[in-house]
């Protein structure tokens, strides 16, 4: 039952991301809800599940894109693992720490994705606009997504 709930949560996140990027992106910039969801899942869920969430959220972004298939999956899996290590030493439950974590990790994951893309496909996918704007948008969104994910965990025992 919990597995079905997790799948529904995954699909719901995908649909919201899809809807937001289609209808609410301003000049091509929109917060990356999938990233915020992967981050929140990594903070809330147990390690194995957090890694699975990271991987599958990455796969979702890979499917929507046209570049390397698997690059986001690897990036978000590593991010989830990094958070698993980090949360043993840092408090990531407070909104401020989530803002800082989202800001920093967006930059790191963007650069990592860029590195992968340049190394494996000689493609330069980095858009300066996204690189400059997205960390701020993600930082603002992360505590909100975390709140909803925490509610899902508390009420439906998901994640």
């Amino acid at each position: 039952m919990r597995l079905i709930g997790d799948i529904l949560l995954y699909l719901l996140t995908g649909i919201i991301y899809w809807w937001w990027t289609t209808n609410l992106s301003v000049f091509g910039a929109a917060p990356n809800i999938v990233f915020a969801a992967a981050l929140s899942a990594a903070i809330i869920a147990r390690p194995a599940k957090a890694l699975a969430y990271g991987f599958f959220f990455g796969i979702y972004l890979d499917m929507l894109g046209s570049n390397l298939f698997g690059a986001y999956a690897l990036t978000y899996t590593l991010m989830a693992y990094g958070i698993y290590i980090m949360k043993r030493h840092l408090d990531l439950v407070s909104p401020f720490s989530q803002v800082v974590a989202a800001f920093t990790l967006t930059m790191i994951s963007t650069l990592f994705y860029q590195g992968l893309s340049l190394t494996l496909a000689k493609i330069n996918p980095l858009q300066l606009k996204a690189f400059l704007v997205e960390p701020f948008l993600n930082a603002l969104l992360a505590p909100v997504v975390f709140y909803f994910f925490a509610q899902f965990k508390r009420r439906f025992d998901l994640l």
Partner: protein
Amino acid sequence: MNREKDMANYTAVFFIFISALLLLFPSTRIAQTARIFCSYSLYPSLHYGSKYDHFIRNVPDNFLNILKTDQENRALTVRIKELEISIKAAEAADEENRRLTSEMGLSRNIALKGVWARVINKNPQDWYGAFFINKGAKDGIALNSTVVGFENGRVGLAGRVLEIYQDFSKVLLITNSVSSVICSLHGANFEGLAEGRGTWLLKMNYIPEGSAITEGAEFVTSPGGLLFPQGLPVGRVQKVYPRESFMNFITADVAPAITINALKEVYVVKRDFPADLAVIQETLKK
């Protein structure tokens, strides 16, 4: 605690291994199957999301449209009669054109027949790379079909179909870093390769040194490129770069003929590919 730590490590290794496999062997059967499986698993959310979102967004407009429709209908009935006469004249001219083209053996020019499609998703992470349209295999969309866009009455090449699903398709834009289009200038006897750069501008490469190319000149798809129908506007030259000492060709920045990222609807051209390309198409399908 240790058990959880081990579990986390094993899981991390497992998913990293899978990701690395997908990344390092993108064209293997397993990677392709994984991609198709993921796409089809997530396909309902994309398809039904776009379908119902469109109706919900347009409810207030639809009421007004009903009132306007009746008036437009009357005006259009008159217009249709006028156009029928024009079509007859155009058909005769088109037939003559085909005959002359065929007799002169000049080109494989084709009429742009196809279907209209709505852009249903653009991913900010891949803004200049690809978008989804709401027409797929059911509507007869074929792999590598040419996708054109219209802006203020102008037509321009937008890209080609990269992936096809039952009800929607993914379009690879000409601005994508992996995209390239063979182009030529009207009346010129040279060709260049317009390559996407992942930004809104294209890079025109391999223009022979000494070619008469100026800012504002319009590049169109060349008959030398088999993938796209010839004569479709690709873009206008924005800046010409002088030849570097180590190159024997010049390059230029080209602004696409249409604002590709502002497209709401596109036209997917249906056509039979030349025999040599059709073989490749069939091989790819298998």
